[in-house]
Each structure stands twice: as C-alpha cells, then as structure tokens.
C-alpha cells in the first residue's frame, strides 16, 4: 500500500471549546454556496408537486372532481388519500392527521390531493382546478365553547400542591384575571420542502428540511408500506425551523415519496409561502385565566391557573405543549397552594404545533401577568413583588409539580441586572418623564425566566452519534441532531475537536442521515447540544480509549495517563503526533470508528399524580426592557434592553449570544407585531409576509446589552454548559410588561391594563382608552 499522506498539522493549538468559532457553514452561507433542499441539483426527469386544499373549515367532502386537474397541461399524476399505499395517518403521537382529507374536512386549507407535473408552475396551476362538492357543517372556532363542551384533542391534566381552596379562602387579598395569548407563525425563511428520489426497487432517498429525520423516515416507510430500512432521509440544513419543522415537515416528504414511488421519478414538493402559512400549524394560541390569593405584602398564598390551548383539529404535539405551559405558569415564583389545569381545546383550525418554548411562553406569561396585577393592587413596583415571590428559603422551593428547584440562580441574577441596568435610577427618571409628558409614556419592566430543560416525553431524551477517523487523521462526525441555524454542528465539531485535541479544520460534521445514526429524537426542546454533544463525546471517548491503549502498549505506559491535546497524544514522557498516531493505529488494526450514545439521567414524571422531576435542570435569564408608548396612536418603541442569561459554561459564546438575541427579538415579535388573524369562515387572513409582520431591522432596540451569566451547570451536562435555544425567547415578556407599565402610568399605576397579545398598536391604544376611562 502507498504511504499515507501526513497533512502537516499545526503543532500547537488551543482547544476550540469555549471559543467563539464562526458557524461551520458561515463561509458557504455568505457566498451563496450553502445548499438547501431546493438548491440540490435535481436528478434528470424530476417532476414537481403542488397541493390542492379544502375551501371550507368543516364539512363532509361528498365528491372531489379532479378531471380538470388531470387534464391540465403538463400534469403527470394526481393522488388523493385513496392512493396512499400504506398507512394513511401520519400523526406523530396520537392518531388524527391523515395525509390528505378523508370524507371529514378538519380545517380550511386541509390538503385534499396532490398533483404532479413537469414543472412547478404547471403543478400549481393545475391544483387550482379541482371542484369540491361539500356538505358544510358547523365549525368550532371558539376555544371557550370547545372547553365548555369538553371538545378536546386530549384529556385534561392537572397539577396540584397543597390545598388551594382553603388557602385561597384564608388569603387577605384576592385577584382574578384572564389573558388571551396569540399564536405565532414560524416564518422560517426557507419554506417547507422535500425531494424524494426513488432508488432500486422499493428503496427511497428523501432530502427534507426537517427537525426530525427519523420520524420522516418512519412515516415515509409507513405510507409507502415498506420497512424502515428501505428509506433513507438526508437532512443537511434547514433555513430556519423554530419547531415548525418538528412534526409538520413530514407530510410533504410523504406525499413526494408516494408520487416518486408511483411514477419512478424524483419528485420535489416545495410549498409556496402563502400555502405554507395556511396548511401548517403555528404556536398555539391560548386563553388562560388565574385566581390568586396573596397577603398585603404581595406574597402569593394560593394560585389557581387554567390554561386552554387552542390545539386545532388534532393532537399533534399538543399533549406535551399544554403540559409545558402548565409546568411554566410558576415561572420563577413559589405559587403557594396551587392548582393548575390544562385543557386541550379541539377546534376547526390547522393543528397547532411546536414553536420555540413549546407552550412554555404561553404558561410563563401568566406568572408575569399575576405579578403585575398584584403589584398594582398592593401599589408596589412590580419588581418588588417579583423578588418577594421568587423560589427560595423564605417562600418555598418546590414547584406545583413537586420538583425541587435546587439552587435557584434568579435572586443573584436579578440583583446583578437590577444594578447593571440602573433599574431604580431609571425608574425614578421615568416617573419624572411621564409626569411631564402627556402623549408619550415610558414603561420599564424587569422579568425573569426559569425554563425546564428536557423533553417531557422521557423516551426522547436519548441520542446517538457516529465518529469516523480517516487515515489522514481527518474526522467525520454524524449525530442525530439537525442544523437549522442554531450552531449545533459548530458546537459538536468543537466538542469532537476538543476531545481529540485537534483543531476544528480536522472535523467535518456530515448531514444528518438516518443511515448513519438511527432512531433519533427531534432537534427540539433546546436539547440538541445536551443530547448529541454527550453522544458525540461518548463516541470520541471510546476511540480515545482504543488509541490510548494502543499507544500505551507501544511505549509501555499507562493508558489512563493519555492526554489528547495540541495535535498530540502524550503519555508521560512520550508523545506522538495525531497524524502518526492514526496511521500507526490503522496499520496495527485498531478500529477508528465508533458509535456513541447518551441518555439523560435523573428525570421522571408521573402523569397520574402530576408529580415528578420532568427536567434535568433549569436555565435562567433576566431581562429589563424600557419602552415608549404613544398614547395617541398606540405605537411603541423598545428603547433599551438589558439581559443577563444563564448558559452554564458556554461552549461557544458567540453562538450563545446569537441564540439569546435572536430568541429575544423573536419573542418580542410574538408579543407585539405578529398577529395571526382568521376570518369568520376560518380562513387565515394574515397569510403572507405583507400581512404578518415579523420584526424588521429597525425593530432591534438601539441599546441592547446582553451578557452571558457563566456559571458551571451543577448537573453533568456536556462540559457543564446549558441549553440556550428556547429559554431566552421568554425574556421578551419584559417588553410586554414594560408596555403595560407605560399604559398603567396613565392611572398613576393604580390600574393593571388588560393587554392581550400580540400587543399591536391597535391593542395598545385600546388599553390606553380603557385605562384612561377607568382613571377619569
């Protein structure tokens, strides 16, 4: 055999861990060379698919006339539910999501058929030509009605601690309130897309933009009626996911695969934006209420919260999403005797789904609503009330689901931000300003975040990885996580490079493929790095042990003393370069490849009792936001934001900072300008980017001071870092509270404004009107 080539590696490197390495695809992204599914060169003969959708929200589909569709120019094939060879239901957990409509129409926009044509535009034009014969039925649009009539996608769940009724009766002060919380469109910039390529006989390769390749593999196999091993899913990167591609990317892959199998050609299905927004689920809108008893100081004694998730027509992930809303109605506060009830309302809307925070934000905002209400009632600054109610020795340290909070970081983090953001001086200045400003009112709010990390479905808390070292010393790592921009692959590459003591250029992270790492969990719940990082590390450790033993034998040393650093393996006095080590190990027939595996320890939850430890640990954050509100128009501006966010020992400070900033602005969008509106027929009318407004560049606050709070995670997470994807999203609740604070100033802070979300300028002006009327 020809001598292997030594690439001449740098001799001294510093470990890439805890460094701000750029995103592993950054250069390709800025050069326009990063490939997304729609950019992959298409196989010869590729055909294109479009979806036809139901025009009403509820009814019996008596007949679907597709003759004009079939006769349309360029059309190759048309399929409906009857043409699905295998399983027809692609629901992720509980049944209820057919690939296409059966006789019962579930929502306006439900896919009814797919048409395959020679070109994309021919397919899309043809899809408009179907004729629907429908016996209309009464749709269910009201969450309250659904709850009243127990029209649920899943049974109601309850979490309790202590005796709420008795404590509430005894409480000196009482308040009730309710809040309607809008949903949110994911608005990933890259829409839903899949490319199915038929391979030999009944094998299928699917390129998809999905957070959950293993589920796509399973569902594609099921609809094709083949075993899972015949289907390979390849996922290089997504142009954004945010939860919207966790379960709801599968349908398009399944449809493309069925058409590819029938027609023996590659099939691409890419949803046009307006259809994407209509046919895919969103963050759940919630209609929640609370009843609290508290003492004169504002300390919670008894708390009763009802959260009603608007789930749409099917369960999708709503069971866990409403659970997570329930788990977070405390945010960082001890609720006293508590009773938390979660309903999953079944309505005639698209089935709502995962979105960054996964119900957590819709629950957590209730905690902050309660704090604001108590503060106004007891005539205190809301921050005083918040601090008073934090988990700790003087309140209590057990959540309403029976989990010990452990070392709560919030008191020290709040104290730090209170000081660094000059909260009290600014409060004074702002009171002065408001007294002299009849039109513009300023508001300030400092709110915490405590977010539980782990999938609440226990089995999902596992991950796998596969590491190969090639004979030139270069390393390939595959793992179960998907890259959607969050920098997961960058962090994984850092972990692998750190373990082997090589630089990042030695490590290539492959696309996520079901034939490399099987049975993976979705990249969701902020868990991507926690799970896959540990699995990757595990694979590295296995290979390192082999290499260390091999080298120890050679130099007669002790393998346990091996140190992998600076492109060297050092064992006591002896050392060998990385390249030489790998070449020698290869010739000595040492396996240079290993899988790795990880499962999260310690977690458990009993749904029957509503008690347990569903989370491995909590991530914390604190934000102070200042806003100006125009009381003539309801327009507002976020003037200043200060954030302190807990990331444990950050694996990559730049990436973590990017996650925090991005999440904050996305959360701000959810609570301010992003308004989902359906008309009285159930048709989404904010169905494109012209009518649904995510934050633009000018919405970024001029002053935005974000600081990482670096304390090692007390739990054994990967290098004691913490998950960062979702928790900072909820820091934006400070913006909503600040807007309410500004409005409340009109009443001399006597009235707590009713401000449903999103707090569009129109809703803000309505709240201004109401508070003005109440205070005059």
């Amino acid at each position: 055999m020809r001598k292997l080539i030594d690439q001449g590696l740098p001799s001294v490197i510093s470990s890439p861990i805890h460094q701000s390495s750029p995103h592993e695809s950054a250069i390709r992204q800025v050069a326009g060379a990063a490939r997304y599914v729609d950019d992959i060169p298409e196989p010869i003969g590729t055909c294109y698919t479009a979806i036809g959708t139901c025009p009403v929200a509820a009814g019996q589909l008596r007949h679907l006339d597709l003759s004009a569709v079939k006769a349309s120019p360029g059309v190759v094939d048309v399929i409906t539910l009857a043409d699905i060879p295998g399983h027809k239901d692609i629901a992720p957990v509980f049944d209820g999501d057919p690939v296409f409509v059966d006789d019962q129409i579930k929502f306006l926009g439900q896919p009814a058929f797919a048409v395959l044509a020679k070109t994309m535009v021919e397919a899309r034009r043809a899809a408009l030509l179907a004729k629907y014969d429908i016996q209309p039925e009464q749709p269910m649009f009201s969450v309250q009605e659904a709850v009243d009539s127990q029209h649920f996608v899943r049974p109601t769940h309850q979490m309790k601690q202590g005796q709420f009724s008795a404590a509430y009766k005894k409480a000196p002060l009482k308040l009730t309130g309710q809040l309607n919380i809008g949903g949110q469109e994911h608005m990933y910039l890259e829409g839903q897309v899949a490319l199915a390529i038929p391979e030999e006989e009944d094998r299928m390769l699917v390129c998809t933009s999905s957070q959950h390749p293993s589920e796509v593999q399973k569902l594609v196999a099921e609809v094709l009626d083949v075993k899972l091993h015949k289907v390979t899913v390849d996922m290089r990167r997504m142009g954004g996911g945010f939860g919207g591609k966790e379960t709801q990317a599968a349908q398009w892959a399944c449809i493309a695969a069925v058409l590819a199998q029938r027609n023996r050609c590659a099939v691409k299905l890419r949803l046009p934006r307006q259809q994407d927004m209509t046919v895919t689920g969103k963050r759940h809108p919630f209609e929640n209420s609370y009843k609290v008893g508290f003492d004169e100081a504002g300390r919670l004694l008894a708390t009763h919260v009802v959260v009603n998730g608007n789930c749409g027509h099917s369960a999708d992930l709503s069971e866990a999403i409403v659970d997570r809303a329930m788990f977070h109605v405390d945010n960082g506060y001890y609720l006293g005797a508590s009773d938390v009830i979660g309903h999953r309302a079944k309505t005639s809307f698209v089935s709502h789904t995962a979105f960054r925070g996964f119900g957590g934000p819709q629950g957590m905002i209730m905690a902050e609503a309660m704090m604001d209400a108590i503060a106004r009632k007891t005539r205190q600054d809301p921050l005083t009330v918040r601090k008073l109610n934090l988990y700790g020795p003087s309140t209590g340290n057990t959540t309403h689901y029976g989990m010990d909070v452990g070392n709560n970081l919030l008191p020290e983090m709040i104290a730090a931000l209170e000081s660094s953001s000059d909260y009290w001086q600014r409060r004074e200045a702002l009171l002065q300003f408001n007294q002299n400003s009849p039109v513009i009112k300023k508001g300030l709010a400092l709110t915490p975040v405590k977010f539980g990390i782990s999938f609440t479905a226990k089995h999902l808390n596992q991950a796998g990885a596969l590491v190969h070292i090639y004979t030139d010393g270069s390393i390939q790592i595959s793992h179960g996580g998907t890259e959607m921009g969050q920098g997961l692959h960058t962090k994984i590459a850092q972990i692998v490079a750190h373990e082997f003591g090589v630089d990042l250029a030695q490590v290539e992270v492959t696309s996520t493929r079901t034939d490399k790492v099987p049975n993976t969990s979705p990249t969701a719940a902020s868990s991507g790095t926690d799970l896959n990082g540990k699995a990757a590390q595990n694979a590295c450790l296995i290979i390192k042990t082999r290499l260390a033993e091999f080298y120890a034998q050679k130099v007669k040393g002790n393998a346990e003393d091996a140190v992998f650093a600076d492109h060297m393996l050092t064992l006591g006095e002896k050392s060998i370069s990385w390249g030489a080590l790998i070449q020698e190990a290869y010739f000595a027939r040492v396996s240079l490849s290993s899988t790795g595996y990880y499962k999260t320890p310690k977690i458990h939850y009993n749904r029957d009792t509503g008690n347990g430890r569903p989370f491995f640990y909590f991530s914390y954050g604190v934000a102070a936001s200042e806003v100006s509100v125009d009381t003539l128009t309801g327009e507002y501006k976020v003037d200043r934001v200060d954030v302190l966010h807990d990331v444990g020992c950050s694996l990559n400070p730049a990436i973590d900072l990017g996650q925090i900033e991005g999440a904050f602005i996305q959360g701000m969008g959810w609570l301010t300008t992003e308004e989902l509106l359906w008309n009285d027929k159930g048709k989404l009318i904010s169905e494109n980017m012209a009518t649904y407004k995510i934050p633009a560049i000018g919405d970024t606050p001029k002053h935005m001071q974000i600081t990482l709070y670096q304390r090692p995670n007390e739990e054994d997470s990967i290098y004691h870092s913490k998950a960062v994807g979702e928790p900072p999203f909820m820091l934006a609740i400070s913006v909503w509270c600040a807007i309410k604070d500004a409005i409340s100033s009109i009443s001399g802070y006597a009235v707590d404004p009713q401000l449903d979300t999103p707090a569009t300028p129109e809703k803000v002006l309505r709240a201004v009107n109401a508070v003005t009327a109440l205070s005059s």
Partner: protein
Amino acid sequence: MIRFLLNHEVVELAEFDAGLTVLNYLREHRKMKGSKEGCAAGDCGACTVALAELTPAKNSLHYRTINSCIALMSAVDGKQLITVEHLCEGATLHPVQQALVDYHGSQCGFCTPGLVMSMFALYHKDIQPHREQVSYALSGNLCRCTGYRPIIDAATAVCTHSPADKFKRNEQQTIAALKELQSKAETPERGLLLPQNREQLARFIKEHPEAPLVAGNTDLGLEVTQKLKQYDCLISLSQVAELKECREDDDCISLGAACSLSDIEPHLLAVYPQLKEILERFASLPIRNQATLGGNLANASPIGDMPPVLLALGAIVVVDNGEKSRNIPVSKLFTSYRQTVLCSNEWISRILIPKPAAPYLLRAYKVSKRFEDDISAVCAVFHLYVEDGVIKKVASGFGGVAVTPVSCEALHQALVGKRWSSAECIAIGKEILMQAFSPIDDVRATAEYRNQLLGNLWHRFWLENQQDNHIETRVVTYA
C-alpha cells in the same frame, strides 16, 4: 432582444416568457441557486440582487438592490445584474461577506445572500453609514434568526472603511460594456415589450390593447407569482425616455412617472423635507428602487402611501396617449376601487407638484403594525397655510380609510379662518375626521381604530405645529 451583464458575462435574450422573473431566470434557467426564494412577493429580501447601472452622465456606476422575485427581465435590460455568487475573488470573500462571518451575522443562512447584496450596495454608497442608514439600506431584508444586531454591526463596520473591491477596480470596463449594450437597446418583438419612446409606446398599446402596462412590476409581479397569472404580452414603461426625467421648474417639481421612488426622493425632499418619514417608510429600499410614482397612482390602491401625499400637495397628473396629453388634478384621478379616469390608450407620463407659495405646515403620518416595510393602517397627510396665526387654506390626503385615496373637504372648510393656536382646532378636526369616512375592518386594523387614529393624528399634527410646543409626540424620530 434584451441585453445585460450577468455578473461579468454579456447575456442576450430574445425569447422568454413575458412574466419571467429575474429570480426564476437565475434559479431555473441558469441554475444559479445562491439567490433564495423566501416569499416570492418582495416582502422578505432573500432574493435580493444588485444592479449596477450607468449614471445619467454615463461616467460612473450606481448600485441599487431589487427584489429579484418580482422583478421582470426588463429590470436588468442595459444593466449589470450582480448576484451573490459573483462577489468572491477566488477563495477570498468580499469584505461584506467576510464581515458577516466575523460578526456571526448568519445563522440558518437563508436570508444571508440577500443581506450580502444589500450590504454590497451600501458598501458602494461611499458613505460612512450610521445606524439609521444601515437600517435604511437593509430594511427589505428579514432575518428570523439573529435579531439583526450582528448584521447591523457587520454592515456598519465594513462600510465605514470600504477599500476598492473588484467591482470598483473593474468599473471602467463595466461602464464600457454597459455603454455598448445600451447603444444596441431595442425591444424584444414579443412577450415583454420595451418601448424606448412615447411614439413606440403608443403604437404598442394600439397593437396590443389587452397587454397591461408595467413599470416597477412590484404590484403586477404578485399576479404572476401569487396568482399564477400568465401574460402573453406586457408593455414595460421602464425604458421610455420621456417618463424617466425629474426636474424642478419655477413653480413645480416635475417627476417622471416611470421614475422609481428612490429616484424621486431627493427631488421631493429638496422642496418638502417633511416627507422624509413617509418616503423612508414606503415599503422597503429594494421595493422603492423598483416601484414607480406613476405605478402607485395608476394602481389607485386605497392603501398606497403616495396618493395621500399628492392629494394634500394638490399635485397634477399629466396623462398622455402619444398624440396629446392632458392634466388631471390628483383629486379627480380616482373613480372607485382601483379605478381611475384614464382611458385605455392613456398612460401617466409625469406628476407635477406645486412648490409652496408661502410658509406652510406639512406632515405625512403613517401608522402600521410594524414601522418598516409595512402597509398603512392609516396614512394621513395634513397641509396648511397659516398667515398671521389664522388658517388660510387646508389640504389633506388619507389612505386606508375608503375605497380610494381621499381628501376631507369638510375639514378644509371648517378650519379656514380659525386661529391655528386655539385648542378649538383640535376639537373641530377630531370631530370631523372621526366621522368623515367609513373605513373597514381588515387584517391591518379595525374601522374603530382607523377612525380614532384619524382624530388622534390630527391632534398630533396640531401639537407638533404649535410654535412653543415642547410636548413629545413621537416614539420614533425621523430627522
């Protein structure tokens, strides 16, 4: 035949579908997948490309961005179309690309190529941009991942010291190549017609009476990409020399109907600097680089932002049919929902805006859910002449409150003769405006909100135009 430079390559296209967009040309015909489709409606900017075109003096290049997803091929005729793939020099990234890497400005990367192109155009502006100018330049690029801060930092840093890139170094060759292309300018014979002058335009309209006129295509583009409409023939106004000229006459500003909003901006602001906010908030920069003033009028959309301005300024619309032209006051232009008094063989050739005859008060307000790149829930423009403290003349224009852009005669009449400083003016204005129209509930606002805004914007106008007012009225200041 249309001719353009695709990056450095001369392209001559004779046969193409009239409705072919620049993005589909790049992605489907040329398999250049760097530019992305995010919305196909000009709302997200993932498809942003840059155009380099000869300045009027033909001795330098002007760089501007457009949304390639809704631009027709007419947009690139005689220009250099620059795409993200062309920015690198060998393996070396362009400075704007390198800055985005260094500042961690890309996460999922899908919006990134568009952002790169907007930063590239800003890089060629020869300014050291402050934050507002960066926001202005990138206002048409949505990013869902980063929260924009690293992008703002990257753009500010890289555009502050911008050494000559290869485009600057090759400028003379590019100029020569574009001059060569322009010397051969001609219209394709079918599909997308590109008349070069008014005679040719009149003839095409006669020969193709069914063919819609297009200019910036920012509205008709949606018919193509969203409603999948097919057009056998389109007549583009973008090369008609007579429609492209802006000038200042003694008593009015004369703006060519096919000039983009970016092109008219300096002319309008030179006389009416108060219009800065409404012009900057008109859609996004790439849209303003394409959309024309004539299009915004001919569309007769009730939610366009320029018609209320033109109503309040008493503008005159010059309409032509190739043989004779006639003048129509803007107030007489709109007849019903998206309808005008134009005959089928006529087009708008220019807009005449009177210069102020005496000291005046003017504000153009826009309220929308999002400050940038959004459509008005209500647009309100107030224009007053006050002499010795007494109101002499009132003009107004409103969008979003009726089926057409409208003025409020009752307001005009009720206020003349009143003392401007008297609080009575607030009450009169509010009372009239809150009942003047019957707006509708839609996705942008309810009728109730619109009515209250009308009154409250008048209140704001009054406050902002009192001599010794120190009351803050705005959460965002447009200097």
